Structure formats: structure tokens, C-alpha cells
């Protein structure tokens, strides 16, 4: 980063240490959804602003608490008959401590405004290097559409709960909801944006470059309380190198790798789920065309393994209580044989380019 002042050069690592390392090291646990590890231009701008806020906050905190503690020590009552000098006030002092907070507020405002400008307006250079993504919120899962990428039938590519994007491109996200208000939040890549049923909201971000064959995985989650399973409305965002993304999107545009639907699928699933290349074209639930390559089941509720998928199909209510699939699939709806058949089929829907199993 050019033009960095020495003070800033010193502050930056210290703040990172305080804000980040101490926080993380305190328990030695990985926090994959942290806001403290920005990996896009906009989250880095926000992070820089939060550093300023943090340091000004530290200064104000120290001034007030020191003043308080010094007063407590210095002026504790020594003689109960003593009446201290009755000071009623001092206008000059009042003016001073009106102006000083005002100056601090102005400083914060200037940097805030600058940051608003940086994260809200998409730069001109984005033209020609933009990928459009449409986010659709559902209780309690995410639908992602790529208007620029067409599937085999010429419709926009659709996927669910796992958003792949190319690094280095401007991602122009438009969002809306089919039911209540949700909020699209991937702390590493962008701030929050409400996903509302009657209007289109939007944001953009540009993820930092990643190497070929080494896609980065970012965790995200619905941040606006949206009813029963708000806690399990999660998503993964996979930032791939442009070449990897190209490979992924080419694969995803194809019909499913296995278009022979098992009977139990036809009987139980096609009303709500779509598998491209078959007659399964439901739209209530997530598109399952390339389900086998996804990282998670039920919007980040569990990792996508055979065991978890078996448990999910056996009794979805036990895995994610109250989710909408439970209206069709109860604990005794499917036989063991049917579940095994469905697990085999769904896990076979993996076109190859996948980060399944990666954290």
C-alpha cells in the first residue's frame, strides 16, 4: 500500500495485534466468519476505518477512566467536617470540552464519508470486469443466480448456498427475498445488506486475488432475524482464480452428470427441487443439479457427507427443526432403501470442480 505514513505503519500492525491476534489467540480457535480478516477492497476500507475508530476510542477511554480513577484516589474524603470549595463551573472549560469532542466527531465523519464513498460507488475500472450475481433469500436458505452465465437451456445459471466468484473481478450483487427480510453478510468480503421482499438492494465487492488451484472459502450467514431457523441460514463463498472459476462455471452450466432419476426421487423430491437435464423442476427448494460437489447440506447446517445426508433425509426436522422440507418429509416418510438410493444419487451429482471437504 503506497503513501503510508510512519505512524500508520506502526499503528496498523499494533491494531491488528490488538483487534485480531489477541481476540483469536485468547482461545486458540479459528473463527472462519471473522470481520477481522478482510479480503476485499471494501472490507479493507472498512477495516481501516475501524482502526481509526478503535484508536480514538482507546484515547477517549483512557482519558475518561484515568480522570475518574485519579479523582477517586486523589479526592477521597479525608476529613468529614471539611466542605470543599464550592466550584459551580467555568465557561471557558465548558467551551473547550464542547469543541474537542466536536473536532473528534468531525475527524471521524470525514473518514466515514470517505469510506462510504469508497464502498458504495463502484469504480469506473469495473466496466468490462464485472460479474453480475443475483441473491434471493428464502426461509432459510440462499439461492444464487448468474445472469451472465447461461445453463444448457439458456436460462441463468442457478445454484444454492454456495456462491462461487472469480477473484479480481467486480462482483455486482443484486438481491431480493421471496418471503421476509434477510441479510446477506460475508464478513471477509463485504458488509451487510438487507435482502428485502419488495425491493432490490445491492452491493459490490472485489475479492483479493487467489492462485490457480487454491480457491479461498469464506463463511457467511443471514444477519437479519428471519424467524425459526435464522441461525442455520448460512452460506459459503468460494473465491476462485479466474481460470478455476471458468472451469467451475462451464461445468455448472451443464445438465446434471447423472440424469437418471431414481424412483424415490421422482416420488418425493421433484415437486420442490430442480435437477437440470431431468423432469425435476421444482422451485420451492434449492436447485440440486450439482449437489454432490457442494460443501454443505441445508444452508451450512452440516457438512456434505454421506452420513449427514442420510440423517437429513431420514428426518430433516431432527437436523434443522422447522425447516420447510419437513412439510413433505417426516421421520417415517422414506424407507432405509429409499434413503440409501437418494444418498447414492445425490452424491453422484458432482461434476468435479469442488472444494467439498475443505474448511
Amino acid at each position, binding site marked *: 500500500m503506497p503513501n503510508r505514513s510512519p505512524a500508520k505503519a506502526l499503528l496498523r500492525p499494533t491494531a491488528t495485534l490488538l483487534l485480531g491476534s489477541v481476540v483469536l489467540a485468547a482461545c486458540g480457535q479459528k473463527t472462519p*466468519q471473522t470481520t477481522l480478516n478482510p479480503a476485499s477492497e471494501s472490507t479493507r476500507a*472498512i477495516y481501516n476505518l475501524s482502526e481509526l475508530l478503535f484508536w480514538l476510542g482507546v484515547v477517549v477511554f483512557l482519558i475518561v*477512566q484515568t480522570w*475518574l480513577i485519579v479523582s477517586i484516589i486523589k479526592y477521597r474524603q479525608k476529613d468529614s467536617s471539611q466542605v470543599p470549595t464550592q*466550584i459551580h463551573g467555568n465557561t471557558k472549560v465548558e467551551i473547550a470540552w464542547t469543541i474537542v469532542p466536536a473536532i473528534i466527531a468531525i475527524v471521524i465523519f470525514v473518514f466515514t464519508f470517505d469510506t462510504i464513498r469508497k464502498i458504495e460507488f463502484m469504480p469506473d475500472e469495473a466496466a468490462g470486469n464485472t460479474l453480475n450475481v443475483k441473491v434471493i433469500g428464502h426461509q432459510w436458505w440462499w439461492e444464487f443466480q448468474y445472469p451472465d452465465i447461461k445453463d444448457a437451456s439458456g436460462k441463468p445459471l442457478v445454484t444454492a448456498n454456495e456462491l462461487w466468484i472469480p477473484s479480481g473481478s467486480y462482483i455486482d450483487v443484486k438481491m431480493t427475498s421471496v418471503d421476509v427480510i434477510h*441479510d446477506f453478510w460475508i464478513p471477509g468480503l463485504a458488509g*451487510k445488506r438487507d435482502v428485502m421482499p*419488495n425491493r432490490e438492494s445491492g452491493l459490490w465487492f472485489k475479492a483479493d486475488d487467489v492462485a490457480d488451484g487454491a480457491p479461498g472459502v469464506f463463511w457467511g*450467514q443471514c444477519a437479519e432475524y428471519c424467524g*425459526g431457523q435464522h441461525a442455520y441460514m448460512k452460506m459459503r463463498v468460494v473465491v476462485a482464480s479466474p481460470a478455476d472459476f471458468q472451469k467451475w462455471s462451464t461445468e455448472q452450466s451443464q445438465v446434471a452428470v447423472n440424469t437418471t432419476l431414481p424412483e424415490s426421487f421422482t416420488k418425493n423430491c421433484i415437486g420442490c427441487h430442480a435437477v437440470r437435464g431431468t423432469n425435476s423442476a421444482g422451485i420451492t427448494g434449492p436447485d440440486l443439479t450439482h449437489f454432490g460437489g457442494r460443501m454443505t447440506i441445508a444452508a451450512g447446517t452440516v457438512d456434505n457427507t454421506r452420513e449427514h445426508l442420510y440423517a437429513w433425509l431420514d428426518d430433516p426436522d431432527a437436523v434443522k427443526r422447522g425447516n420447510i422440507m419437513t412439510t413433505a418429509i417426516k421421520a417415517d416418510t422414506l424407507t432405509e432403501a429409499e434413503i440409501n438410493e437418494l444418498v447414492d444419487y445425490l452424491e453422484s451429482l458432482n461434476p468435479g470442480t469442488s472444494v467439498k471437504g475443505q474448511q
Partner: protein
Amino acid sequence: MATDVSTLHHAPAKQRRGWLEWITTVDHKKIGIMYAVTAFLFFVIGGLEALLIRLQLGSSQNAILTPEAYNQVFTMHGTTMVFMAIMPVNAGFMNYFVPLMIGAGDMAYPRMNAMSYWLLLFGGIVMYSSFVFGGGAPDAGWFAYAPLTSTTYSVTRGMDYWVLGLQLLGVSSLAGSVNIIVTIIRLRAPGMRFNRMPLFVWMSFVTSFLLIFALPSITVGITLLFFDRNFGTNFFLPAAGGDPLLWQHLFWFFGHPEVYIMILPAFGVVSEMLPVFSRKPIFGYEFVAYSGVAIGVLGFTVWAHHMFATNLGVIADTFFAAASMLISVPTGVKIFNWLATLWRGELRFKTPMLFSLGFIAMFVIGGISGVSLAAAPFDLQVTDSYFVVAHFHYVLFGGAVFALFGAAYYWFPKITGKMMSERIGKWHFWILLLGFNLTFFPQHMLGLQGMPRRVWTYQQNQGWDFYNLLSTIGSFCIAFATLVFIVNFIISLRKGAPAGNDPWDAATLEWATTSPPPAHNFDVEYIVHSRRPLWDNKYSGEGRGMTINYDFHPHLPPPSFAPIIFSFGLFVLAYGMLNLASAPLIGIPIILVALAIAFVGMNRWVGEIAQDPVL
């Protein structure tokens, strides 16, 4: 008036005994006590809900509560603490002490005052009865964002109970505010000019105006919501062209001033306690008073900072960020004046003083995180995360609740005539300070680590277990501290040392009368000559702070059944409204009965007003 003064002084018209005395009282002091006790009970209930929340979040993937139960519990925790604990405990202290501090005999409208209390109690009962009759409590969060509140997504009757409970609480607050304002404007003792009023009275005055201007917005909002849920309208339903964002504007135009409605009275009591225990006047009285007014006015220009994530656009973001940051200026002025009040004082660390100092230390942390949240881009990362939960608990618990516990210790001797135990009080303070910070400080970290608020559980692989565990341990320290307070309260009520009129060597008029004060508050009329009438009489010479008019004829209205009957009518009306759309054959008769009850109350009320002497 040729009334016999002595009868008025010592035997106000027919006094009722036992529980009827409380049911029929129009004495602002008894009403104040009922307010505070009721609010404390709701505080305990809201606190138990908080413990359930913390138990569930104590470790990842806990199953103590189902998601449905968790969502009801956190909704009721917020609603209870805001509307049924902090607001009414403020109202209780205002009721008891505003008339005493300005040298008045009662509130301007004693019967309406009783009505305000009964509507608080009934509003709380309506809301909590949803657990039993509504098929479930409200479950859409305390700010109840549409369309989650619609019958499609909130399928129990809980939200209807929520609306009707809030309507009763709203009437209660509105009537209470009018009463406080008129009392302050009309009933000040001679010489008690506005610029001599105690700062608690100032802040009560500002708070009451905030309520009057803010409440209509939520009243409109919840009325429209009730129509949407019951009568087929579509104000907030997008499918039919309604707008969920309209709800957010209506709610937060109330909701942000509401924050100051909760915190300004706390600023007021701290501005009373700090000078008394520093044995100095408040530093910069005018600045402390007027900064409160400034906060109140600016408080109406910042509501959309709760909505930065809704994509308001650059211009709105900029405006609301700037306005919100501006509030830090008058707030900073207050903090500096409090600190300057300590400077060169003779500080006595009695329990009320400890809570006042704790208030400053904790509130500053909430203020710092508050300014950060005003920076819209930072807000986009931490809003709706546990960072915000930490922030507003530092403001409302570290701020308001600490100050109000201080006020309880400060004024308990006046209310009961007995001192609270200092020893137990200090245990209470230190355990609470520790527990509070242990509970809420780690939540800043959780928010920065990406934990959203209002999640009923989280997974182990998120790495949030450790801070959540700390927070849960802290919450039990808070519960224990509250238990210590209750023990102290009971012990002190039974065998506290006699307080005398003026145990803290204080400055304001409530300490010039006996503890507890007589029904008519003062045997004489005080003519006020300074801001600290009692102090100046003690330390500058008799007559310097105030002089006495013995030719004084206090008037007290007799006890009355009218307020509780009228309020009970409105209480029944709520249940009629609940059934109006779903079962009109039940709802309409209930409504008619309710109106009849209210009419009986009103009729008695009017008859009693006619018998009041003309003053």
C-alpha cells in the same frame, strides 16, 4: 378557603386500609412505589429470560431451548426490559421524586397518575398472558420487523398480544408524561425557577417531551400492524404492495428517542448523586441541563442509523451518520461535567456513589462503541451482530441500570425511613460490575468474529464457544448480584438503621421533609432562593437557600376507585380486540362489557373531579 388546616395536614379525607389503600391510592408516592416494585418484578422476569438465552448459548449446539422457544424468549426479554422494566422504574422515581424535589404536594393529575400505573400493570399482564392464551409469546424480536410479523410467518397470536400490550403501555406512558410536564410547569414551589430545578427534574421534563413526540409513531405502527394481522389490510405486506420498510421508519422514529427516554432519567439521577457524594455543586449546571435538551432534540434526527444495512443510499447514510456523531458532543459535555464535579471534591464512597462512578465508567464504553456504530461502513460489519448487543447493554445496563440501582440506594432511606446496608450494597456493586463486564465485554469480540445476534444456536466450528461461555458465566454473576440486592432490600426494610430526614447531607428539597414523607409531602411551603435550597440553608446560613411559609393549605384528593376501574375496562377491551376478527361473537360482547366498565370508571372519575375544591 375556610378549611381547617390541621385536618388537611394530618388526616386527608377518608383513608383506606390494607390492600384497598394501594388499589385506590392517588398519592404519587405510593404510585411511585408500585411503579418501581412492578418494574423490578418485570426486571427479574426479563432477567430470567436472559439467563435462558445465556444457558442456551453457553456452548455450541445446545438444545436447552427449541428455536421457537428461544425466539419467544429473546423477544420477550427485549420487550420486557425496555417497556416494562427500565421505562417504568424511571416513571416510578419520577413519580415519587419530581413533586418532592420541586416542593409540590402531589402530581398535577393524581387520578390520571394512578391510571398510568394500572395500565402499566395491565399492559404487562396482557403481553405475558400470550404464553398461556396466545399459543405462544411474541416471537418477532422487540423491533418486530415486517413482514416477519404477518400471520404468514408469525403464526401464533403472540404478536397480537404484543400490539395490545404495547397500546396499554403507550397510553400509560403518554398520560404519565403529560402529568410530569404539567406538574413541573404548574406546581413548582415559589422561587423554584426552571434554572433552579434539580437536574433529575430537568431530565424528567425532557424525557416526558420525548415520549409525547415519539410515542405516536409506534402507536401508528402497531395499529397498522394489528389491522394487517386481523382485518386484512396490507400496510406492511409486500405481496399486496405494502412496504416493510415503512414499519422500520415508524418503529425507529420512536425507537431511537426511546433510547434517550431510557437513559436521560439515569443522567438525571447521576447528576443528583455525584454532587451530594462529592460535597460540591454539579459542575456547569446549565451545560448539563441544556446538553440533555440537545440530546433530546438531536435524538429525533438519527433514527435511520438503525437502517444503514437497508441500502438507504449515500446521501441518507451520510446525513444519519453525521447527525448520530453529533450526539456525542452533548453526551461528552455531560461526562466531562460529571468528572469535573468530582474534581477537588471530598468524595464519599457510599453505595449510591459507587454506582454513579460505575455508571460513568461503563457508559463511556457504550458511548465509544456507539460513535463507532454511527460510522456507517463500520456499522455494516457489526450491526445485527453481537457487537451491537454488547453496545446497547453497555448503554442500557452499564448506563441506565447502574444509575437506577444507585438511585434505589440513594432514595431508599427517604422512601422507607431506613438505611440500606452499606456492606451488602458494596458486595452488590462489585459483583454486578464484575458480572456485567464478564457478560458483555466478550460480546464485542463475538460480534467482530462474525456472530449474528438472535441466533438460537451456533456451531462449534465457528470458534465462538469460549467467549460465549465467559458471557454465560458473567450472566450468572449478574443474577447473583441481583439476588444480593433483593436480600439487602428485605433485610434493610426490616431492620435498617433509621435514616432521619437527610442521611446523605444532601441539597434538594426531598430531604427537607421526613422519611418517609407525610401524605401531603411538606407541612409548610418552601420559598426557594437557590439551586441547592437545603444545602445553602445548612452551609451558607439559614434562609439563604429557602425560607418557609407556614400559611400553607395542601389539598389532597381522596382515594379513588375510578382509575383502576377505568384501566381495567381498557384491559378487558384488549381481550375483546383480540377476539374481534377471529371470533366476533365472543369479541363484541367482551368489547361492550369493557366499554361499560370503562364508562363506570370514567363516570366516577368525573364525579370526583366535580368535588375537588377550586384552587
